[in-house]
């Protein structure tokens, strides 16, 4: 690996982690689409900030972007409160309008500056190593790495400092209000952090990747654990993994790094979605199948127990009678019987069934459970 490649990957990794730890809360608080809206509208803040200070590297732009982020959230809340439109439509109205204003401002007044609408969406990680940070004349690494590293540390510090407040307002906003934790304030602070993260990342990875990194790794982590700190750490790790794998995918395809990282983050989520030990699709399907058989077997032993020792037991315990009584088709009845015999719930003498001790217990337990 060349130092260029290492620089790009390090920057991508800190960006992924900065997004992922915030994203955990966004996914839990159902604010993913609000985040998507902010990721588009901060462009307006950047444009307006740029018109004021005439410098694309100025930290003032971050304030502009954060202000527009808060403006977006407030406008959406205002529209919702007016009850003229529903919440989802409010988001769908506000962000395209603010974004359109930004795009028109750029193409009308900033056509000759390096402020390209495509670059906002895509970013260009490949240019990261060329923009160096110098301290006392020494080259200490790419500027983007320090910028996103700083954003990561800032987000991390916020989460560590206000962990209790964040957790409470995320899982029980009513209780948080009652205890005086001001969930609304936390909501706005969180949204400000999202805006700052988006604007820090916008010329590095673009707004799309920010949303992908804020949603996909936390969503995957959410399917893997029930424990909030573990979920946050896991999403940071999955984000970092997607960043590195995405870089190499882009390297081999000669395609956009941000797009590749988003794609890999999607693939990681898809894998987790299929294979997660308890909540994945496969585990779900296996559990449903197991429950189906268990239920049928339990019905069988209950049926046998019901008639055990009674005069009609001889008639009721005939194998051929099952199909009629349980309304099972032949194939299904055979399989239920086979599983019950193998697992030792019933025994078979000729064409008659009888319960084993195990089977009798199962049937009695099933009764007790109700």
């Amino acid at each position, binding site marked *: 690996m060349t130092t260029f490649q290492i620089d790009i990957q390090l920057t991508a990794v800190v960006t992924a982690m900065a997004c992922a730890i915030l994203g955990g809360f966004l996914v839990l608080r159902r604010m993913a689409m609000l985040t998507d809206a902010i990721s*588009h509208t901060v462009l307006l803040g950047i444009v307006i900030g740029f018109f004021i200070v005439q410098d694309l590297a100025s930290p003032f732009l971050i304030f502009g972007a954060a202000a527009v982020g808060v403006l977006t959230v407030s406008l959406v809340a205002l529209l919702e409160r007016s009850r003229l439109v529903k919440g989802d*439509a409010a988001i769908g*109205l506000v962000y*395209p309008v603010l974004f359109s204003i930004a795009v028109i401002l750029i*193409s009308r007044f900033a056509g000759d500056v390096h402020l390209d609408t495509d670059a906002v969406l895509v970013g260009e990680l490949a240019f990261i190593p060329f923009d160096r940070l110098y301290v006392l004349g020494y080259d200490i690494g790419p500027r983007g790495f320090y910028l996103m590293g700083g954003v990561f540390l800032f987000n991390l510090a916020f989460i560590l400092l206000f962990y209790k407040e964040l957790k409470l307002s995320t899982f029980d906003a009513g209780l948080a209000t009652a205890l005086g934790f001001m969930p609304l304030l936390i909501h706005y602070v969180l949204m400000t952090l999202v805006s700052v993260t988006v604007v820090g990342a916008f010329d590095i990875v673009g707004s799309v990747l920010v949303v992908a990194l804020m949603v996909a790794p936390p*969503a995957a982590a959410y399917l893997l654990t029930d424990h909030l700190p573990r979920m946050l750490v896991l999403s940071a790790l999955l984000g970092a993994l997607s960043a590195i794998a995405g870089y190499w995918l882009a390297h081999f395809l000669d395609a956009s790094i941000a797009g590749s990282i988003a794609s890999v983050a*999607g693939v990681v989520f898809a894998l987790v979605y299929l294979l997660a030990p308890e909540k994945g699709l496969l585990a779900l399907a296996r559990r449903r199948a197991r429950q189906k058989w268990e239920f049928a077997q339990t019905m069988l032993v209950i049926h046998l127990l019901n008639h055990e020792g009674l005069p009609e037991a001889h008639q009721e315990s005939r194998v051929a009678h099952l199909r009629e009584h349980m309304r099972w088709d032949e194939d299904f009845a055979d399989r239920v019987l086979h599983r019950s015999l193998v697992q030792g719930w019933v025994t078979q003498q000729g064409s008659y069934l009888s319960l084993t001790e195990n089977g009798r217990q199962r049937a009695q337990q099933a009764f007790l459970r109700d």
Partner: protein
Amino acid sequence: MDLGQILYDLLFDYTLRTVALGASILGLVSGALGAFAVLRRQSLLGDAISHAALPGVVLAFLITRTKLPLVLMVGAAIAGWLATLWMMSIIKNTRIKEDGALGLVLSVFFGFGLMLLTFTQRLPDSRQAGLDHFLFGQAAALLAGDVIAMAALGGLALLLLGLFWKEFKLLSFDREFGASLGFPMGKLDILLTTLLVVAIVIGLQAVGVVLMSAMLVAPAAAARQWTDRLGIMVLLSSLFGVLAGVTGAVISSIGRGFSTGPTVVLCAGAIVFFSMLFAPNRGLIWNWARQRRNRRQLHMESVLRDLYFMAGQHADPDHAHSLQALRAVSAGRGGVQVSLQALEHKGMVRHTGSDQWALTPAGAVEAQRLLHEFE
């Protein structure tokens, strides 16, 4: 540029005529289907589908190596469809909520589309030029063939919407009732979502994947303010869509830097803003006036009641009270003097000199009626 010239250009200038026609077809179809999306709280589904269509467009090009509008539209529709299915499956099978599933599918599909787009752009194949117009749309590059494809697909979507009107209405307002009548609500849901995908696909080339969702949401949200009837809302929504499309196309043809997509979206936004302010019954100004009227009425009634009570304290029902006394018992509700003047105008109180006010017989009757109602 004067209005006559603009009208002349709309009719006879090839570029402007094509762009305006394209934008109005887009506005018509997305307005009509957007009304259903907004009513069914699927505004953001449109956003997700339109972002998710990008990889479909690029893959359709990579496979066929043509940029025939119909081919790209089919690619976009398939990708949008797959995205919707995946999203539904995530919502159904995991604890991730709708919001997270939308954000996830939207950003991942869009990222994948960008990856494919940049990959394609670096291929030694000049035919890919112009695919990136699908990001923000390039209405100015619309050709007659594109508009014909849009009209064909859009016409089909509107025809189906008309044919299944009753069923879709039922689906949007009372799904369970429809199911109990024996309509296949699941299949109707799929059909309506498919029509939504068609509407999105039609607009991609003109306004781009990023802003397409606004064309679904804005006209419908504006139309919702003016009416409570579905039929009228769909008509108005289409009308607003066409209006935004044509106005946006005209403005962008005049001003430098007004790209068509964002300009059309801003026009739609302006229509929403206007509707929210001025629509009767629901609009903000209407609401404000109604609240003001109600507040005045309440103030007036409470002053009348206060006067009646205070008169009851004295043997003489005509006993006059000072403005200060009335203010004191009004407990800071305000508007006492205005209310008194209004009451005097109605002949329910009379002014007995130097800020003294007394009930007239008519006022006493009215106050009794109010108290009776109050109990």
